[in-house]
C-alpha cells in the first residue's frame, strides 16, 4: 500500500479552516486574528524550509552533514533547556549543561537504536538518523529542562538545610543528594505518564503517521514501542546528566555550596 500524496489543492482546502479561526476571532472580538495569521504563516514557512533542508541533506548522504544538522538541533534544544528554568546560573553554564546532557542522551539512545534495532544501511543513513534524533531530542529536552528547573528551584529553598549538613561535616554529595534525586524524578515523570497513556488517551504521533503512510497498524505499534523505550532511556540519561552537572557546578574543591554562581 502506497501513501496517499497530497496536492497543493488538498492543503488549500484545509487552510480554509485557518480562515474560519480568523473569522471567529473577528466576529467574537478575540483580537487573535493577527496572531493566528502570523502563527499559520510561520508554521508553513518553517515546515517547508525544513522539508527542503532535509531533502538536501538526504541527497548529500554525507555523515558529516547529518552530524552537523543534528548538532545544530541539539544546540537549539540546549537553548530551550537554558531559558526555561526560573533560576539560572550566571554566565553560560545553563547552556553548557543543556548542551552536554541533551547531546549525550540523544547520541547514546539514537546510536543504540540505529545500530541494534532499526539497522538501516549504513546505520547513519540520514533518512533514519535525523527524524529519530529529532523525536528523541524533543523528549530529552523536556526532561532536562524539568530536572534543571527542579534542582535550581529547590537548592535555593533548601539552602539552610544543605549548609547545616555541610557544617556538621557531611560531604557535599550527601548534603545535596535528596535534591538531585528529586530533580531526576521530575525529569522522568513525563515519559512515565506518556507510556501509561499511550494507546488509551493518545494515539502517539509516530504510530499515527505510519498508519497514515500505509503501514500495518501492528507494524506501526512495534515502531512506537521501540520509540517509547528509547525515549524513556533518553529521558533518564538527560535527567541524570543535567542534575549531576548542575549539582557539580554549584560546588567547588572545598565542598562549599556556591549559590553565588546563580543569578
Amino acid at each position, binding site marked *: 500500500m502506497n501513501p496517499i500524496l497530497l496536492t497543493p489543492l488538498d492543503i488549500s482546502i484545509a487552510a480554509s479552516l485557518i480562515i474560519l479561526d480568523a473569522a471567529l476571532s473577528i466576529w467574537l472580538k478575540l483580537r487573535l486574528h493577527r496572531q493566528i495569521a502570523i502563527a499559520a504563516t510561520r508554521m508553513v514557512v518553517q515546515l517547508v524550509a525544513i522539508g527542503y533542508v532535509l531533502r538536501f541533506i538526504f541527497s548529500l548522504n554525507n555523515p558529516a552533514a547529518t552530524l552537523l544538522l543534528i548538532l545544530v538541533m541539539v544546540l537549539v534544544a540546549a537553548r530551550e533547556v537554558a531559558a526555561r528554568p526560573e533560576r539560572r546560573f550566571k554566565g553560560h553554564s545553563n547552556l553548557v549543561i543543556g548542551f552536554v546532557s541533551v547531546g549525550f542522551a540523544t547520541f547514546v539512545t539514537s546510536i543504540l537504536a540505529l545500530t541494534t534495532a532499526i539497522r538501516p544501511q549504513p546505520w547513519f543513513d540520514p533518512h533514519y538518523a535525523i527524524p529519530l534524533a529529532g523525536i528523541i531530542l524533543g523528549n530529552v529536552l523536556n526532561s532536562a529542562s524539568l530536572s534543571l528547573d527542579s534542582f535550581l528551584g529547590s537548592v535555593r529553598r533548601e539552602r539552610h538545610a544543605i549548609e547545616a549538613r555541610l*557544617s556538621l561535616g557531611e560531604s557535599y554529595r550527601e548534603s545535596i543528594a535528596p535534591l538531585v534525586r528529586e530533580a531526576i524524578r521530575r525529569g522522568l515523570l513525563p515519559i512515565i505518564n506518556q507510556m501509561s497513556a499511550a494507546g488509551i488517551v493518545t494515539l502517539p504521533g509516530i504510530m499515527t503517521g505510519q498508519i497514515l503512510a500505509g503501514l500495518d497498524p501492528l507494524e506501526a505499534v512495534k515502531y512506537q514501542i521501540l520509540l517509547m523505550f528509547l525515549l524513556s532511556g533518553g529521558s533518564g540519561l538527560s535527567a541524570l546528566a543535567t542534575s549531576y552537572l548542575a549539582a557539580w557546578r554549584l560546588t567547588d574543591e572545598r565542598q562549599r555550596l556556591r549559590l553565588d554562581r546563580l543569578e
Partner: protein
Amino acid sequence: MEAALLVKELRSKFAGPFELNLGTGACAAVTGPSGSGKSLFLRMIADLDPNEGQVWLNGRERTSMPAPEWRKQATYVSAESGWWADMVIEHFALNRRSEAAALATRLGLRDDLLDAPIAQLSTGEKQRFSLVRALLPSPPVLLLDEPTGPLDQESVALVEALLQERMATGTSILLVTHDPNQAQRLGDQRYRMVAGHMETL
C-alpha cells in the same frame, strides 16, 4: 596561652583581613551591627564561603584536610537553623538518641519534642536543637552565630551554662552575638565588627 584556633590574614571580597588567636577553652565574642560581616567571618572560618588566608587548628592548617573533616573540627551553627528531614529525631544518629535527649533536656527542651515533626517546633526550639546537633560530636571549636537570638531569658541562661561547661572541658568558642552583656559574660576576648573589619574591645 597556646592557640587552639589561629586565623591569619583571612579575607574575602566582602570582608577582612581578619586575625584571631583563640586559646583552648577560650571564648571570643564578636558584636556589631547587622550586615557588618560577623556571620561571614564565621562562615569563612568554617570554609563555607569562598575566602583566602590561613586557619590553623592545634597546629594543623585546614587545607591539609578535606573540607568535611575540617568542618567536623570547627563546627558552624547558623543563626537560622536548617533541617533536611521531617522529624527532629531523624537529624540525629540512631545510636546517640539518649545523649541527644540528655543535652536537649539541659537546654530546657521537653522530652517528647525529640519525636515531634520539625514543623511543630518554635524558632527557639529549633535553634536549641540545632545547638544540640552541633554539640553532640563535641567538636574542639564551635562557631556560634547568634545561638540565643530567638530565646527567652531562662533558656539563654541554660544555653550559656552548657557553653561554659564545654569551655571548661577545652572547647573553644567563637561567638557572634548582638547582646553586649552576653559578650561580657562569655567572652574572654571581645571584638566589634564594623563594615567588614574587626576591632579589639
